């Protein structure tokens, strides 16, 4: 099981706990994540400036993975959506020829359409399969209750992602967390966007979006929010104080990555899961399972 590990831009700088926990979780699950230094930005930020440039950037990353003969596993939902969308666009042969011509000009290899792109959570759910994860659980997290935030780009646009999850009623990450013994709640604004993408252009709306979910989950008294994307984590954890200030409330809701939760159930240490980097300390959780 060797996969090209697509980190993206945010994870290696802003979400070290995500990277650390993913690498260590993969290690005990026996999944080899290979670092590819040639990978660049997926193209998401460029999409608002020039669609074709964005497509070229995505295609270049796909071509690199294809050349190495590995499918892509990523941890950022935004990157995965952009790469999957690009894959869908490039099913059109005419467009693919045109893109390949340009790729050649920048010295990249040709993209033929073979490489598969999957988010780590989707990979665990679809390919690794729940029963194999269950076998590796050593400390069931029975007493915990989480609210899961999927992140819009995790399963949308569904046509690009091959309809693997239901955007109105998502279930895959719930499945992964339930396997650890922890409970997950179904809550009304489960599908709400974190709003991070417009933080720079419409900050007020962005913060209000984040506040809604934080308010609800705080009032429900869940142990933590579970996320699967560095951007969502920035919106809910890094900005938690700011958001609180904006709506006149003080939040103290830990935000964990799904990899941290699964790793905890598999007996990985706090350090191996990067809990030290959690800004809202999750001591209540970690102490229980020391």
């Amino acid at each position, binding site marked *: 099981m060797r996969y090209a590990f697509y980190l993206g831009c945010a994870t290696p700088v802003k979400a070290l706990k995500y990277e650390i926990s993913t690498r260590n979780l993969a290690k005990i699950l026996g999944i080899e994540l290979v670092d590819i230094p040639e990978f660049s930005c997926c193209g998401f930020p460029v999409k608002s400036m020039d669609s074709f440039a964005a497509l070229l950037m995505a295609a270049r990353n796909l071509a690199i993975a294809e050349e190495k003969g590995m499918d892509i596993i990523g941890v950022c939902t935004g990157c995965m959506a952009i790469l999957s969308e690009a894959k869908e666009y490039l099913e059109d042969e005419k467009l693919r020829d045109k893109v390949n011509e340009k790729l050649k000009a920048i010295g990249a290899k040709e993209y033929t359409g073979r490489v598969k792109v999957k988010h780590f959570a989707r990979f665990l759910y679809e390919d690794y399969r729940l029963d194999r994860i269950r076998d590796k659980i050593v400390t069931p997290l029975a007493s915990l209750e989480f609210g899961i935030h999927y992140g819009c780009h995790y399963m949308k646009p569904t046509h690009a992602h091959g309809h693997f999850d*239901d955007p*109105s*009623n998502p279930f895959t990450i719930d499945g992964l967390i339930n396997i650890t013994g922890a409970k997950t709640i179904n809550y*009304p604004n489960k*599908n709400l966007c974190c709003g991070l993408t417009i933080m720079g252009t419409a900050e007020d709306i962005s913060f209000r979006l984040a506040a809604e979910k934080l308010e609800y989950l705080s009032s429900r008294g869940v142990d933590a929010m579970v996320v699967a994307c560095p951007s969502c984590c920035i919106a809910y954890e890094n900005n938690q104080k700011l958001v609180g200030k904006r709506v006149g409330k003080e939040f103290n809701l830990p935000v964990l990555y799904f990899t941290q939760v699964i790793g905890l159930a598999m007996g990985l240490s706090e350090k191996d899961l990067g809990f030290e980097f959690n800004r809202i300390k999750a001591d209540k959780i970690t102490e229980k399972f020391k």
Partner: protein
Amino acid sequence: MKIGIYLCTCEGEIEKVIDIDSLVKEASGWSGITDVHKDAFLCSEDGIRKIRKDVESSGLERVLIAACSPFFKMEEFSDLGLNKYLVERVNIREQCSRAHRNDPENATKKTKAMLRIFLEKAKYSQPLQPLQLPSLRSALVIGGGVAGINASIDIAETGNEVFLIEKNPFLGGKVAGFHKYFPRMCPPSCGLELMFSKIKSNPNVHVLTSSEIDTISGSPCNFEIFIKTSPRHIDMDKCVLCGKCLEVCPHNAIVYPEGFSYPCIPAINKGLCAVDCNKCVAVCPVDAIDLDEEGKATNIKVGAIVLATGWEPFDPTPLAEFGYGRLENVVTNIEFEKISKEKKISFEEPKKVAFIQCVGSRDERHLPYCSDVCCMVSIKQALFLKEVNPDNEVYIFYNDIRTPGEYEELYQKARRRGTIFIKGIPSELKQDEPQKINFSVFDTVAGKRLDITTDMVVLATGIKPSQGTIDLKEKIGIVLNKNNFVESHIQCYPQDTQRNAVFSAGCCRAPMDVSRSIESAGAAAIKTLQFFNNCTEITPDNPAVNILKCDVCKRCIEECPFKAYSFDEKGFPKSDIMKCRRCGVCMGGCPLAAISLGGLSIEQLSVMLDVFDRSYLGEDEPLILGFLCKNDAYRAVDDAALKGITYPPNFFGIMVPCAGAVNGAIIAKAISTGIDGVLIAGCPDNQCHYIHGSTLAKARLTDISNKLKEMYLEPERVRFISIGRDDPEKFADSIEEYVEELKKMGRNPLRL
């Protein structure tokens, strides 16, 4: 062979342009010509009498009428005392005198060339006798819903036998479960009861419930049908409807009839039974239950088939945002009918109910069409709620409210009773507290967002074609459209399917409400009766396969748009005279040119080319041979003449039933014997009367064009154009253009 040529001057009109006298002189010298006659008014009584007299006295074997287009005066020239297939019409008015009114000299030359080739064609025509093939005066009606029942009654009450088959144990279909019909809001029991009593009392109707079609063989007029009937397990004659079996059955296996059902006898669904339960057998006071009863096979013969296979409600589960099946109190409109009929929920306590329209309908991913009835259904249900208690709050969220014709009245009524109509479709339904549904919707008229909490949401789901229709597709060979409704020529022959003697009634053709279903059932019944009457005499001009040439490649079987071909007893393909619609697509496709239509054989086309004077306009003038499809192009050419549009005399048109009827060997012969350009003119895209005739013609021409390229000839020497029958300008323009192009290309090097 004695041949007479009759040239009409059309009261001098034709003669104004064409030198008829010189033609009479010239033609008299041709071999085999008995008489050449000029008449001022050939279609008058005198004219016809003259021809009939000549046929009788001189024993003419072929007659050429050189006059107007064959689409005029068809009646007058159909009975000249000679088999009508031996009379050849030469269209010298539309195609010569009118089309080239400014060029009398060339018009006369073209007329002469035309007479010459049609004379040759006439020499090779065969007399054909109409066949007597009376239809069985019995029909099979598939589907016992409201359409099927009405079609059956209509056919039976005109004295014909009807077999009505239904796959469920009872007749009545979907509407039997409804609360009320619109627009008059009467309960379905009322109408159905009357229909059932008509069926019961009419000995012409044979009802087969719990039955399905096994196989269909034979052809129109004489179909043979095998029907499988599943056992009912209850003896219809003995049962007294005491209901005891229903009480004791632990497995819900008794399908019990409603008060007005027909037949009003329960059925047992043995699939749900437990082995050795036998409780119902024990309790039955009249000993009517036989759990070992076996299914039956019935074999019937009918002349025609009426499809009334109906519809199925769309299942909204895939539209997960509406939470159907996940949220409480989100129901479909069909379920709401049941709720209101059985009073499962009382609406006497005021409630807030929201209807969401177009759930699944007008949706690319589900039902791309408008389901026709849902607006009316929601309005009907809204009126019901307002009637039970005017304080019920009713919202209808819509895209467009469609209440055509007089249904508008109900829409107005619903508005006046206080139903709130909001243009805007909610995107997601949520359940914040039990039994309540809340959602937010953008009112596009108000430009405002509304947050709404209701007690119930009714999803107005649409109509989708039934599985039964799809299952029958292969068995009958009917064509379904892209949405799986029965395909028909929707404007002119809505009730006809694309197979002869198979008609459609009700929702299997398109979504429709009860009243339109009954209308369409009546229309299908009339079509069936027409068929019974018309098929006593059948025109014999269906294509015949020359078995000396046929190699059994089966291309005709594959390409026939009406699946009319099967193998005869010797193993050669043979067209079914009843299924065939005489398009000639088989004739055009046969690689060995072994198939000929009754009135236009390959041999005739071939000899016509032999005698065709390639330089009738002079050595350097290009020559275009056109094959014109009967339904569109030929009419357009006639129309050009009528409107005074002229085109170069270099064009020469022959009528074919369909563009797809022109064989490649004929085109090859035309090109290789020196004709400069061959033009096939067919219907505009997707309007071919024979489904894919013009598509095939285009594909075949591409093959020939490729071959010409290989031969270092100009591939543009063959060409396909689409001409609508109302577009003579386009025709004239393309001919002019083509003549110019051919002049540039130069003479066909194969012209001698």
